[in-house]
């Protein structure tokens, strides 16, 4: 199994306050080439879970296993993360070329002679034209910034892509393109994809399995189609009812 998360708990401690349990014992597995969605509203612990998996937060207990080896306390290169605020996660004073060069150099991914070719490859992978290389993040669109973030992750040849609300700040047409890109990357590079979102319709477009998170716990887990067709937990039904869906709004009329 590529990624195994066992009974992971994240607790925030603030002196003088009661500790807050943001993630209360979450377990799941993810294999290469699979896409797993984690859905829930703000404050349910999705992002804390993501940060604990990637090592940005120390879990209170539980373990993250990569190929069966514990990862706790490390920042595994095999898992790379894409954030919601694409422009905000890029350095505003670095051009796209500098951003990509930096990753390759710091992690010694390429020798100086190969860097240029590798950057070209990365741009092709995420569907960016070569002319963006000289641009600063503020000079390109939100969707292009998000593609640069993807390219930066892929530079490290990860095996798992962890995306925390990658499309919720984007326009619908751009959102569609980024979701299509994620699907292509998952298939072509056989990546394990972990997609975190509050929108079930977004998760449904690329994820085979979905975990519904509420109050720090998984309240429902299963194949996406099964969960969406026959939601068991009342919270899943609430989430489902909140999806702004064109088809459903008129379904009663068309028939």
């Amino acid at each position, binding site marked *: 199994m590529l990624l195994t998360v066992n009974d992971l708990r994240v607790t925030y401690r603030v002196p003088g306050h009661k500790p807050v349990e943001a993630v209360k014992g979450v377990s799941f597995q993810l294999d290469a080439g699979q896409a797993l969605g984690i859905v829930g509203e*703000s404050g349910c612990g999705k992002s804390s879970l993501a940060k604990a998996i990637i090592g940005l937060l120390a879990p209170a207990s539980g373990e993250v296993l990569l190929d069966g080896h514990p990862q706790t306390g490390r920042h595994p290169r095999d898992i790379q993360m894409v954030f919601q605020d694409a422009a905000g996660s890029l350095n505003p004073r670095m051009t796209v070329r500098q951003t990509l060069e930096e990753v390759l150099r710091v992690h010694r991914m390429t020798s100086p002679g190969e860097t240029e070719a590798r950057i070209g490859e990365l741009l092709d992978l995420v569907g960016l034209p070569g002319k963006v290389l000289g641009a600063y993040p503020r000079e390109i669109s939100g969707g292009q910034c998000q593609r640069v973030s993807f390219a930066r992750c892929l530079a490290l040849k990860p095996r798992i892509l962890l995306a925390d609300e990658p499309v919720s700040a984007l326009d619908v*047409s751009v959102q569609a*393109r980024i979701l299509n890109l994620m699907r292509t990357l998952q298939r072509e590079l056989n990546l394990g994809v972990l997609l975190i979102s509050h929108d079930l319709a977004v998760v449904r477009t690329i994820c085979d399995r979905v975990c519904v998170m509420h109050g720090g716990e998984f309240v429902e887990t299963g194949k*996406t189609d099964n969960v969406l067709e026959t939601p068991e937990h009342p919270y899943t039904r609430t989430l489902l009812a*909140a999806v702004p869906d064109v088809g459903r*709004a008129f379904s009663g009329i068309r028939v």
Partner: protein
Amino acid sequence: MREKVLEIRRLSVSFQRDGKITVPVRDASLTVYAGERVAVVGESGCGKSLTAMSVTRLPPTDRAELKGEILFCGENLLTASESRLLAVRGHGIAYVFQDSTASLNPVMRVYRQITETCGRMSKAERIALSEKLLEETGLPDPPRMARAYPCEMSGGQQQRVMLAVALAQRPKLLIADEPTTALDVTTQQRVLDLIDRLSAKYGMAVLLITHNLGLVAGRMERVYVMYGGGMAESGPVRDVLTAPGHPYTEGLLAAVPRLDAPREQALHDIPGTVPSPDAWPQGCVFSPRCERADDLCRTEVPCDKPLGDKRLCACHHPCPVEGGAPCC
């Protein structure tokens, strides 16, 4: 026939910078009837927000030039005096913007912001009125929230406070510019339901600006689809969304992730991006991204054609619609 609250007639907004003139809104026309819920839909950079802000002349007037007519209850706001505008802003027309954190004053307690437009009042009156308005917006514990600072609240709660601010003067028209884009789906649904409810209760017209057609479906009465600074298509929501006439509407609709679409199929996306206003092509602005574009589209700007009796569509080759004008 219902009374028109807002009528925008051929509005153009132009900016002059370094001797170059750009026109991000061109000949946009729009009507909102009393108590009606109308949506303006389009991608970023289509001129939606600029149009909405122009209604009360909010764009910087030293740089922006507004042409056309904006009739609010019959009065042209483009020629109205500054003092008259101050009376309309907040009182006749209220706004709710996308970024509630930036719209609220971080160092002012909520009750003072809600009653800022109410003139002279005692502190006790301000608090009492705020509590009443906050209760209407469905916030829990209004007495505590009225005395809180914006930073003590979540995004959804702040957006409710913005609504309370907007409602303080019982406006005839509420302009909501992407009010829920920063919120998650369950909160989004609650805030939009609230706007619907308040609109029905007070007969307040709503102009909702959004990029998500999913929000418009089943919620709004009429929709304007905006592209390249003008209206691409308009009509009753159900008609436009079930049988789009303009290829842009079709593209937007297909890009929305749906719960009933086949899963293996990639989402449709509209090729290319919205060009910036200084690089708009000749002819139809949408032609470089359009599958149906031909030489006519690339040379001549399409004018509004009726599709059926309630719809308009600015396209040389609209999708055939039953009862519509014959397709060329």
